[in-house]
Every structure is written in C-alpha cells, then in structure tokens.
C-alpha cells in the first residue's frame, strides 16, 4: 500500500524478528519509545474470528503499527491525506490509527485470499510512547513478530503482530 499509493520504495527488505510477549494481567506490554529512540505514536487494531467474539473482546490477534511521530505527517501525505500537525497529540493519535486501520484492512484481505476465514477488525486504539495499561491480545500466545520497515534509508515504521490460530475456510 505504501509502495503502490505512496510512491515510496522500501530501502531494503523488511526485517522480521520473533519476540517474546511481556504480559501482565492478560494484557501485552507495548512500548513505542524503544522502537526509534524518539517520540513514537502507535496504534493497535485487534482481530476476531466473529462478530460475537468481537462483542466479547476475545481477540484472536492484534496488529500494532509504530511510526516515528515526526515522520507520520509525511507518510500520510504520501497517501493523499491532509497534512497533520506533528505537535498536536490528538492529530497524530488519529493519524496513526487511520494508517493502522488501512494496514489491518490489507492484512485481513490477504489472509482471507490465502484461504482463511474473514477476520473482524476492531476500531483502532492509539498511544504516544507507551500504552500504560497494555493491550489485550490472544492470551494463549507468547510470541509476537516484529517487522521493521526502512524508508528513505531509515527505520520509520515498525509493525508487531501476534495471532492465534486462524481457522481455514471450511
């Protein structure tokens, strides 16, 4: 999406890293500051197997998209969104959520096209630097996968994904 619509070329192949989930009270610890060493905004979109599990907030997985706050406006601009004020917390929280929603939508389509069920997506939750109370996730999982994307030579966007077993379309 970023390559096609935004006209960006990734500087290199994304780097994937498997990580252990740090959890407390069945919520996943998520910290943005460690990603870029700078002010970071991040947004989470949760996935559910059905509308019913979504209503009970029984998430099967969660995608967290991290963006260096000072880079977010440029990234969104490349996708034809209006410019946002990077010093306006509400604007960057909303902007990162909008981006995470787009990426999650593509993810749902890709896994559906690969023969898995259609996952329901939550609305986004956004945070700056850290999610103090953590983020709910599939409690049976203890690993998450981090993808680091290099844009214009620097690490600008990182995504973390944890996901329980997604049923195949029967």
């Amino acid at each position: 999406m970023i390559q096609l619509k935004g006209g960006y070329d990734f500087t290199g192949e994304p780097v994937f890293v498997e990580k252990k989930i740090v959890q407390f009270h069945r919520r996943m610890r998520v910290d943005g500051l460690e990603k870029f060493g700078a002010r970071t905004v991040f947004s989470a979109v949760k996935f559910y197997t059905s509308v019913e599990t979504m209503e009970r907030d029984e998430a099967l997985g969660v995608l967290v998209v991290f963006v260096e706050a000072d880079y977010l406006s440029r990234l969104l601009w490349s996708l034809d969104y209006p410019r946002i004020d990077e010093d306006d917390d509400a604007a960057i929280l909303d902007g990162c959520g909008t981006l995470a929603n787009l990426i999650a939508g593509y993810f749902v389509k890709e896994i559906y096209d690969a023969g898995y069920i259609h996952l329901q997506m939550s609305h986004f939750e956004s945070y700056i630097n850290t999610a103090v109370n953590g983020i709910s996730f599939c409690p049976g999982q203890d690993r998450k996968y981090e993808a680091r994307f290099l844009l214009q030579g620097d690490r600008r966007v990182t995504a973390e994904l944890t996901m329980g077993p997604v049923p195949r379309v029967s």
Partner: protein
Amino acid sequence: MKIIIVDDSLLDRKLLSRTLVNSGVKNEILQADNAEAAFALIAGNIGDIALLFLDYQMPQMTGVELMEGLVKVPATAGIPIVMVTASASEESRQAAYKVNPRLAGYLLKPFKPDQLMAAARPYVQTDA
C-alpha cells in the same frame, strides 16, 4: 441537501470532505465521529440528506450495525449510503449488501477521487 460523513478517524473525515469539495460538490457537509452522534445528526436532518458516508469499523457500534438501524426505520430507510472501509474482503462487502441491498456504494480506503465521485455523483450537486 446535506452530505453526512460518519467516521471515527478525523483524518478520514477530512480526506473525504476535502475530496468532495475539490471535486466540485456543492452540498453542505456534516460530520460525526461515532454512531450515537450520527443518529442525532440524521434525526435532525431527516428529509434533507443527499448522501451518507459510513465507516465500517467504529467503536461501540460498527457502520453496518448503524446502517441496520437506519434501514429498519421507514423515515431513514431511503437515505443513500456509501460504506467506506479498510476491510477489502469480499465477505465484508457481502455483509454490508445483505444488511442494505440498496447500498449506494462500497468504497475501499485508501480511495481515489474518481472512485469516490463515481459513488457520490448520482446523489450530490456539483459544479458541472
């Protein structure tokens, strides 16, 4: 007549609104960031709504649930609705059309201006 945009993302509302205006749409554009605010806005403008843009993923009540409520009420059942979503799967599209077979359009984010106007043009006032 008015256009109502319902989306929890301010940025998406701005993008939609700006694209409509830049495409020459003359209708007044109103915005709501959740279903409850949308119901209030719709109730206050019954009979004066040209088109409703509805986001699929919203907190508390999804766009499909909101639309389900609207199509059950005779006074709002005829409002043209364009669903706007990041969920590109065929199943989401079918779920929306099942709730509202008269759906005026199903728009995928990020959309292009001509895709937006193809859905909106039959219902809005433009320069041309």
